[in-house]
């Protein structure tokens, strides 16, 4: 047994056998009931009809061709350095990471939504709305002259001031709407006036001129109860979850890598 030749032949035989065994494994494709069933189901979803035995055979043949071509391509390393393959794999990984951390249990889902709602209450409020009447003057002089000399009558006030394409009454206007229709200066001044069904305040300036304003009602911003905004909360929560889990997933992966900048 000390003859190197014996060792050489023996080791050679073992290597040959191992290679043969492994190659057989690689070249083997098993077409079992699972495969047939999968192909048949896919066929039915796409075509709408159950596959006949003949169709299943033909599906198996084309699947075989695809499988063999795929294995050969992998064996030749064609997947490496291919941008399309890389992107597709990365995309699939991203989809996987989005699933992480999404609650499936109904109760814990509800808990997660309510705590998200309480943490982001600011997002779920009505907007403050202003209801007011206005008397318009095109210049400051005209407005001042009017303001100094006259008492606004309780009736027929609509006929006072100059006519304009603006309305004399506005109902439930948000700050953004007041800014859109009168300009930012007016909207800001309006939000600083005192609510009063009696007093005419001003004049305040807009993009058009000067206005005496009777701010009849201010509906202060209100919290919307969870039950009313549940659908919106769920969408916001899911969107946040997706983005956090993607970030967390990447950060966790990043930890595992030692990056050397040269």
């Amino acid at each position, binding site marked *: 047994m000390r003859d190197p030749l014996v060792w050489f032949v023996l080791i050679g035989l073992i290597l040959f056998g191992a290679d043969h065994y492994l190659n057989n494994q690689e070249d083997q494709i098993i077409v079992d009931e699972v495969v047939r069933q999968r192909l048949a189901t896919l066929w039915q979803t796409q075509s709408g009809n159950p596959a006949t035995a003949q169709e299943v055979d033909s599906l198996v043949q084309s699947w075989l061709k695809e499988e063999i071509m795929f294995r050969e391509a992998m064996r030749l390393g064609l997947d490496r350095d291919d*941008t399309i393959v890389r992107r597709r794999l990365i995309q699939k990984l991203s989809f996987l990471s989005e699933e992480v951390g999404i609650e499936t249990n109904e109760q814990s889902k509800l808990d997660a939504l309510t705590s998200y709602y309480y943490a982001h209450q600011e997002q779920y409020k009505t907007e403050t709305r202003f209801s007011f009447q206005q008397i318009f003057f*095109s210049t400051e002089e005209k407005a001042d002259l009017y303001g100094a000399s006259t008492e606004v009558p309780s009736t027929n006030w609509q*006929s006072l001031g100059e006519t304009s*394409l603006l309305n004399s009454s506005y109902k*439930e206007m948000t700050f*953004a709407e007041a800014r859109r229709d009168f300009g930012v200066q007016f909207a800001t001044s309006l939000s600083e006036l005192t609510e009063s069904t009696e007093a005419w305040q001003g004049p305040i300036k807009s*993009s058009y001129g000067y206005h005496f304003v009777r701010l009849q009602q201010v509906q202060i911003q209100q919290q*919307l109860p969870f039950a*009313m905004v549940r*659908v919106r909360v769920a969408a916001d929560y899911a969107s946040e979850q997706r983005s956090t889990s993607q970030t967390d997933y990447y950060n966790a992966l990043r930890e595992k890598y030692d990056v050397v900048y040269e």
Partner: protein
Amino acid sequence: MNLIKAASLVALSALLIACGDTSNQQDSAEASSEPAVVPDIAARTPGYSEHNNAYFGDLHVHTMYSFDAFIFGTTASPDDAYEFAKGGVLRHPGGFDMQLKEPLDFYGVSDHAFYLGSLRSMATPGTELSKLDIANGMDTLSDGLNRRSKFQELITFLGTDRRDEILNQKVFKEAWDDIIGAANRANDPGKFTSFIAYEYTSSGPGNANLHRNVIFKGDEAPNLPFSRLDSLNPEDLWDWMDEKRAEGHESLAIPHNSNGSNGMMFQQTTFEGNALDATYAEQRMRNEPLVEISQVKGTSDTHPALSPNDEWADFEIMPYRIATNIDSAINGSYVRQAYMNGLKMQEDEGYNPFKFGLIGSSDTHNASYAGDEDNYWSKVGLVDDTPQERGSVKLDEPNADGGDYALNKSYKTWSAAGLAGVWAQENTRASIYDAFRRKETFGTSGPRIKVRFFAGYDIPAIDDKALLTKAYTNTTMGGDLIATESDTPSFLVWAARDANSAPLQRVQIIKTAVKDGQTVEEVFDVACADGNAVDPTTNRCPDNGARVDLSDCSYSQDKGAAELRTVWQDPGYAPSQRAMYYVRVLENPTCRWSTWDALREGVAPREGLHKTIQERAWSSPIWVTPLAGQ
């Protein structure tokens, strides 16, 4: 079905009573199994006005379901588009956030029916369409260059032949149902109106643009839209609309980009080249009461070559056929000329196929209206999302021909433009749609300029306290006035600035008429800002001295008017003359988007482009029918 509707109505009412705030309507509606339930139609929404309010919107919006928008990188859905219109933030495919400074009152997602949703499906791994050869590379489109070339490949592929392999009805139907669903989800009577809509993307020979947007009145629509795959001939679209109207689906079509139609949009023959007749004119006007005069791909009011005496004719001219760099013929491509030819036909033949009102809209392919010069992201996604790509700023390296700017000729002529204005009693589908139908509409180049226009024999004095009540007993924009033997009509024009844009410089009335058998046009300044008076010999306001400082795009703060209004009579009026009048309102000059781009990049504005523009609004016309030949 009715039971469910009734139940959700009860649930909705209970919620509304519980919170006492109508702004919560949408959330509660979302929670129910049915789409938004429209409250009692007899109830008036807050803001209702018997003299009509101005509402502003965009009826021309593409999302991920449009074949081209998808290629350009747009992944925004119709739901996203409506959220954006209401003031929400939308991420541009180029990676920046888009948000409107002021939300819109109404919006209509109008995706191309042509291969609706198909390209998105081709790019989605695992779908049947993704397995086609032409779908190769679609799931990995990256930069603008790559997208532009794939777009050219696809448009040639799709445009040359009928591609049956892509005609997957299931894909069309899913997209169309989502578009209908999104419009119904977004509709919020009294606050925000959305329309079910789509684009009929037809063209004549040589890329002659014949595109139309079809807008539906109701909350239901036909099973599938009628597209260029069904017919390239717009007359077939009208047949289809007539047929669907009889089945209860009221709609109207709005042609756009006549400027890029190579003379075909307003040609005086049928699509096949036959003579027009009264039946054609009636059918066209029944289905197309409006035209989109201004949008991102330029303004179609008139061309300097057609209106040499109109000093403001050279405004946002986009001289190419759509999606090409080929010149578009001028004759037959502009609105004012069509109005004139229409009058002439009415005079000679007794019918007028061009008696339409006006709106503007954007044609955004990013799902997002972009009508502000200083808040502009153009409209084709990753293809023109940087100043260099849209030609306002020099490239880092010379282009393939050795030039300094991007090669595409057309993007630099595009426009931060296109807003639709309507005078409607309230912000509801029914009220706004009725305004479209009676043509009480106006278009702007972006700003929210308001313009009212009346004509008649009983026009009140301009300072009358009941001005509007009295004005509405006359003819309003979009309407007809019959000449009388004894009276001369007066025209009341009343315009107001956009509170957040530049003040107004002047208001004009544009008249076209048939005189001694020939068509004529005249532009009259009728009201001037800053207390100036119109010179009666030239019919012009003096220069009001408003200027723009190009170093920072600031403009004169002490020039211009918040409102301009006047009562005017036509010095050349003759009761026997067939004429029509429309209003053009001009702002003081402001920086064009390309100047803003250059300013932000710290470079000089590109030579050959207008550095400043005068934003404007156009009213729908009023037509005067003469005594003889009524």
